[in-house]
């Protein structure tokens, strides 16, 4: 199917990826190839199959409403770039 550079840039925005115009153009080509390939599924008559995948193994899995505390908070926040007291500190976010 045909997609435009605009489509690709819109998708990049949704996915929070920044791509250059050249990259977008390259992707148009790649996508069209892949999506054309995907069209093979259009030919199939799949009817109105209602798909309920997960219940194939499991059914509903529920956890009892009980508390369990993750004690080692220092370890938990080891990968945060910066903390203030026990808050995670990040560059200012404007709402």
């Amino acid at each position: 199917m045909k997609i435009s550079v605009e489509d690709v840039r819109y998708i990049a925005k949704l996915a929070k990826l920044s791509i250059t115009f050249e990259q977008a153009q390259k992707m148009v080509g790649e996508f069209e190839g892949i999506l054309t390939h995907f069209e093979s599924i259009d030919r199939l008559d799949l009817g109105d199959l209602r798909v309920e995948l997960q219940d194939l193994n499991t059914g509903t899995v529920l956890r009892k409403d009980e508390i369990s505390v993750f004690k080692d908070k220092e370890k938990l926040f080891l990968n945060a770039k910066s903390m203030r007291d026990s808050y995670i500190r990040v560059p200012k976010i404007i709402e």
Partner: protein
Amino acid sequence: MSFETVIGLEIHAELNTKSKLFCSCPAEFGAKPNGNTCPVCLGLPGTLPVLNEGAVVLAVKAGLILNCEIMTRSRMDRKNYFYPDLPKAYQTTQYDIPICRNGYVDIGTEELPRRIRLTRIHLEEDAGKLIHLEESDVSLIDYNRAGIPLIEIVTEPDLRSAEEAVAFLKALKSMLEYGEISDCRMERGSLRCDANISLRKAGQNTLNTRVELKNMNSFKELQKALESEEERQRELYSLGEESRIVQETRRWDSAKGKTVPMRSKEDAHDYRYFPEPDLGPVIISDAMIREIRESLPEMPADRKKRFRDLYGLKDKEIDIIVGDKALSEYYEALTARGTDPRAGANWILGSMLKLLKEKGLEAGQIPVPPEELHKLIRIIKEGKISLTAGQEVFSQMFDTGRSAGDIIKEKGLSQISDRMELGRIITGVLDDNPQSLSDYAAGKTQAAVFLMGQIMKATKGRANPQLAREILEEKLKKGLP
């Protein structure tokens, strides 16, 4: 041209579970920032959700209380978007198939009933909290709230005025409180409400462009925001500029006293919903529904009716008492011990509410056990102390936690109800006020009131008023001295 206001509400209530929706972190309020977190609710790579049974039960309970159809098979979905308070960059919610559909809440009166329909109720997780510091180039994030279980309740656009919207929300809040589903505290954010409002010509049955309102943090603000927006839209219609009403989100600015457009967020709001692959379907058995239905506590409407039948109180009084679950339970603890319903109601509606307000406490925190108040009421009834003195005693009981008996003894507040003793005092007062005697004899009934005052003064308020009046009248009739 007569216009009709059309309002729909979207309410989020935090569920009263012990743990979060998908992990076992405590779901409590007020903990140290990030104290209630773990790899799962932080959305660390590799973690997976496991659904909290308690949350499912409360959601079903809410559905039953609100007259919904319970979907025996529903599903969790992912709602994808980027925001710093959303650790996984998606919220796990229910989009396609919610756990409850089609309910209603009846408000209004018996003569003018109003049924407000509900579209759906679904389960979802809450996001964390962002804190912006004024003069600073940093923001702070606390993920304690991330993963807290919420139910979202959506109404049909059946509400027709700001006042009605508030009445509905109050009724809903009361029902959720009685059902022990949520503690519904708007000031703490455990009950949140957004509104959709539009206007249309009276009689029209299609809907016009609606505006979404956010940031209303109390019943009052909800009412003001709706009224203000209603006014704004009406103004535009009257000027023929209704095309300027666009589908947008506006926030209530209480300082400005009006709704303002929200700074436009990312216009790309394509949430790309798809079924949550890490969770199975949510299956509710008929047995579970039956069990929950059978364990439902008494609802406000039923309690009001019961109060009306049993206690003979006025509607307005019942509304106030039943409107507060803990208060109504306290009241019934009194009547169960034999307190006269009328007397009990007077105490609750009078001194109790006054003291609670003064001390900034809630009915659930009343420091006087019902047994003790019951005793106090009996002491007053038996004439051992006056009502006025009793109110003072109650205030002391509130502050110190001591029993009525102890306080009365210590402060010597016992009422003088002994005929002989009172008689002597009254004689003394009459002796001291000969002028009043002659005034009374001369027909000035006002003098009796004055004399009563003097008797009270002499007894420091402890004279049993009915008895004192009786004795005074006897003596006055006799014409003394």
